[in-house]
């Protein structure tokens, strides 16, 4: 599938989410209103998924809804980004090679304790990893893939 490279996705103007109206968060807004609210900071979201298409499309959708969303394809780069600037949200896949989702978000939480975490999983085996995190006092939300974007946006609100 030649379609899968990020470069072929619909090109999105990065200036979009800098203009988002907070009051309209969660609903699609037109470009003109986005441009009016440049002064407001948009919630920063790190989207982590080893499936590039998932990370890219989710980031894209969130940016359309005035989130400052950035895709990462592994835990390490996401942690590095969190070190630079703490995100408001981390949206991470659970099953990933090397550092898994739970390990990744735990690391980020160490750096940024106030960051909210939503985990996405397509596999029932995540239950164990999650139970581990719960036992350490972390109350991560888990959503089953595929998550409809509307539902995801509801959770981010």
């Amino acid at each position, binding site marked *: 599938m030649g379609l899968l490279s990020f470069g072929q996705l*619909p090109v999105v103007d990065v200036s979009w989410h800098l203009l988002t109206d907070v009051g309209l968060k969660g609903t*699609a807004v*037109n*470009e003109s209103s986005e441009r009016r609210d440049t002064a407001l900071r948009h919630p920063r979201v790190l989207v982590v998924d080893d*499936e590039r*298409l*998932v990370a890219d*499309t*989710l980031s*894209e*959708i969130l940016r*359309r809804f005035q989130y400052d969303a950035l895709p990462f394809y592994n835990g390490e780069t996401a942690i590095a980004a969190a070190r630079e600037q703490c995100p408001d949200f981390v949206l991470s896949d659970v*099953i990933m090679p090397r550092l898994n989702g739970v390990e990744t978000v735990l690391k980020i939480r160490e750096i940024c304790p106030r960051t909210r975490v939503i985990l*996405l999983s*397509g*596999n*029932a*085996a995540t239950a164990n990893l999650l139970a581990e995190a719960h036992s350490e006092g972390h109350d991560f939300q888990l959503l*089953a*893939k*595929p*998550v*409809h*974007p*509307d539902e995801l946006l509801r959770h981010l609100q």
Partner: protein
Amino acid sequence: MNESVSMTSSRESAVRQDSDLRTAELNPEARLEELASRLTQELETSQQLQQVSIRLMQVAEFPQLLNEILDAAIDISHADMGNLQLLEGGSLKITAHRGFETPFLEFFQLVRDTESACGATLSQGERLIVEDVAHNPIYGTQAREVMLAAGARAVQSTPLISHSGRVLGMFSTYYRESKRPDDRELRALDVLARLAANLIDRKQAEDALRHSEQLFRVVTEASPVLVWMAGTDKLCFYFNKRWLEFVGRTLEQEAGNGWVENVHPDDFDRCLQVYTSCFDTRVSFQMEYRLRHHSGQYRWILDCGVPRYTPEGIFEGYVGGCLDIHDKKEAAEVRHRLAAIVESSNDAIISKDLNSVVTSWNKRAERVFGYTAEEMIGQSILKIIPPELHQDEDMILANIRSGRKIDHFETVRLAKSGERIDVSLSISPVRDEHGNIVGAAKIARDVSESKKLERTLHMTEKIAAAGRLAATVAHEINNPLESVTNFVYLAKISPELPPNIRRYLDYADQELSRVAHIARQTLGFYRDNSRPETLEVSRIVNDVVSIYQRKLENKNISLVRRIDSDLKICAVQGEVKQVLSNLLANAIDASDLDSQISISARRISGVDGRSGVRLIVADRGEGIAPEHKKKLFVPFFTTKKDVGTGLGLWITKELVEKAGGSIRLHSRVGHRSGTAVGLSFWLQNQLPADKVI
């Protein structure tokens, strides 16, 4: 003749005295003398008899006794020769003799009937006197000649009669001249005969007793039986060789109560109790107890004791014989144990002869096959073999005859009820003690249950494998599904989208949600967050039909919808759509070209007053074969070969039942007879309106 001459001096002098007495009869003085002489003679005879009797009493040996008797008889009768005959088996046998040579002895060795004077005497039980053998008609020519040749001219025979009147035999004394013994001599002979008869009688009885005792010893010592004897005091005084060898002890150790030391402690009380109680009541007993063998092993013996009595009926104690029954008893115990094992076995155990006739039939066989042992023993085994498998029996018998065993032969047998039972047979030849094959022992294990279990297990494994596969596939499917959902969403929110494209994208979005839902339900990741909601039946049906519109058109199938207006159900939308979709897809697959499918829905009320909805999807296809019917709702069962997953109806049933509904299927085989699947949903599953999302 000098009358004072002693009679005892010699036989010649006695004969002379007798003739002197007869000459003295003429004058009174002589008569007086004669009387005095007779008196003296009588006295002498008495003394002689007394001496004889003392001597006889002292004789220990029987032959010597007989000789002494004979000598006394010859002396008393003043005879020249004599013999003594005893009755043995109806004949007189010469057991002692004086003055006879071989020809006489040989001729008269055995005397029967009245052939001789002796025979005549015996037959009458009286004395016989023959004064002149030469002229007495009692003898036959030959006998007379033998007598005369031996010098016997005259003879007297006196029978020997016991106290009890039994004729024992006789003694005879012979004279070389014709003569008759006088009265005094005869009286003395009578006295001697009585004395002799008693002594012979007693001696014979003693000998008989001694003989019988000797015989008893010989028999008991040679006997394989352990023999003991006890006196009236209950104490044992005799144990035979076999007993002593068995316990490895001496008679002295065993005597009295010594023997009980070797009785097993557990049997001791019972053994003594039986022994003493039977002893006291003088009844025979039989008991089994363990006796310590010289090897140290306690061996089971069977002891039979009987009271002993004298001929007069006086109790003398007990005599007993014991048999070592240890091996037999152990063998019997092993047999009983084996029999018990066979009876309690969880397998049917049957034996039969080489003609297939049943010879044994255990309890389990009764349960498995339904026939009792009485019904089967003596009957042919073919009774439980299905007719088409009768040739099995020939194969089995051929193997058995050649000594081969058959292991785990899986086949089918017929129960009394006619039910066919899956069995696993193990058959072994049965041999007699000579090693000849005389039949077969058959162990039949009922494997119907395990076969069922095997099938279930197989199915479970299949499901488990599918589950594992599903879990693996789930992750792989959910990720692209996520991407596609996101792409569709991005397309949908693009500004200035033509309305028809937006509508298509809305459909695509709806269908993707459904795919996501199904993927979750069927592919193992089931975290259904959606809740039941009130759904309009006609809308659901229309939504599903629109998905299959193209398929319906391809087969030119006309769809008839009969749906009551305002009919609503409360269910999870994705699930109801999944169910309807499965049923409609099946109906389309079952339909021929230009066929018809009907979907109807109407209100129903249950027996308990509940109201609900019945939804029926019916086709006019070929129908479902009866043998497939009961497997329809089993996962992975499919009649569609390449295109079916075998999951559709199974999931449908799961979903319907999860929603508290039920599913029923009606189908007949035949052209256009069709299949109708009816679903019932009940309305109390309906959530209150405010809870519905």
